[in-house]
């Protein structure tokens, strides 16, 4: 079957969104189901068929979602109602909309991705050496926490132990016994 010429193809738009909290591991298919569920729940089947949402890329904490041209607003509203992906609480923060995926890729900050890749490789090297990477600890409200994500002033922590594994969102100023200069920007 031959492909349609460009003038006969339906026009599409791509929306770039950041996945929060940072560092959440998701599968493209699961995220598609979460988005599709949110769109269908808000707009109904008929409008969802017109929007035709699809997850076309999921990389480095960002997702590119495709829709039909002219339905970006509806999709954006529906995306703000995405609250979880397979019981993992998430939130999608829309960054930009464009007619091509390539123009959105330039907004991913390639140098940051490269930096995080290098750090991931470093961590993997430690693991290869048999040394487990030790996550920094901190205390807040007289409880001990493990830092799972640190970016600038923002620090995400999880309480030590196995009882409570919910993430807490703090800042460096909130932490009680931590020398802020010892935390690298990416863990």
């Amino acid at each position, binding site marked *: 079957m031959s492909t349609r010429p460009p003038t006969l193809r339906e026009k599409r738009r791509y929306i770039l969104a950041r996945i929060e909290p940072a560092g959440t591991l998701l599968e493209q298919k699961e995220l598609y189901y979460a988005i599709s569920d949110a769109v269908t*729940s808000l707009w109904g089947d008929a409008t969802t068929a017109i929007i035709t949402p699809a997850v076309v890329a999921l990389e480095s904490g960002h997702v590119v979602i495709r829709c039909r041209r002219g339905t970006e607003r509806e999709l954006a*509203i529906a995306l*703000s*109602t995405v609250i979880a992906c397979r019981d993992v*609480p998430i939130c999608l923060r829309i960054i930009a909309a464009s007619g091509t995926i390539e123009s959105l890729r330039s907004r991913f900050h390639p140098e940051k991705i490269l930096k995080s890749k290098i750090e991931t490789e470093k961590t993997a090297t430690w693991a290869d050496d048999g040394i487990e990477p030790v996550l920094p600890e901190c205390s807040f409200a007289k409880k001990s926490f493990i830092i799972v994500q640190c970016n600038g002033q*923002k620090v995400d922590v999880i309480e030590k132990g196995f009882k409570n594994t919910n993430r807490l*969102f*703090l800042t460096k100023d909130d932490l009680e016994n931590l020398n802020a200069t010892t935390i690298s920007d990416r863990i």
Partner: protein
Amino acid sequence: MKITDAAVYPYPLGDASVRRLALEAAALGFDSIVAADTPSVTYGEVEVRSGLMIRDVPIKDVISAVKRSKDSGKVISVNAANNNFNRAVIGIKGVHILRGIQSADKLAFDHVAAKMAADNRVAVDIDLSPIIMGRSAARQRAIHRYMDILVLEQRFEFPITLSTHARSLLDMRNVRDIAGLCSLIGMDVPDVERALAGVGTVLTPPKQAVTVIA
């Protein structure tokens, strides 16, 4: 005009510290937030207003709680209940916001209460969390109730506030998302702007209609 999220719940009620909520609010385009059980402070560009949320108490206790918090600079809000309770709450001097109207019964906020709210400058809060997190019947009911409130608002012009009731950082939405969600209940951009400035409106004393020059 300050763009304000009229209710957020920092740690221990939620999972984010008030500093982090303020940081996030700044990134999302807010100038101020009303945080429950938190002293008023300013972090960076965001002003954190102290909020007192009164709920599930008889009117006597509401009056005494409002009296205690008088002149403390807190944003005092009371959860809506039945019609008589709501009218009584709106009549109390010092109450700023009537919230949770979507959970109250159908006749809880009528045209008389709307007129009283307009006269006493008591805002009605539109809680976006049922629209964001609710699904099917719960969301439909909330949208219907808010549309009904907006009909009264257009007639009587009482203040409206918008809140996400965020207990987590992930529950907060940016100003553009809020405008989009409000379009579901028939609010256009000027309406949303006015509603986001609603907390400032109820906290500033009203201008006198007639100024006497000696």
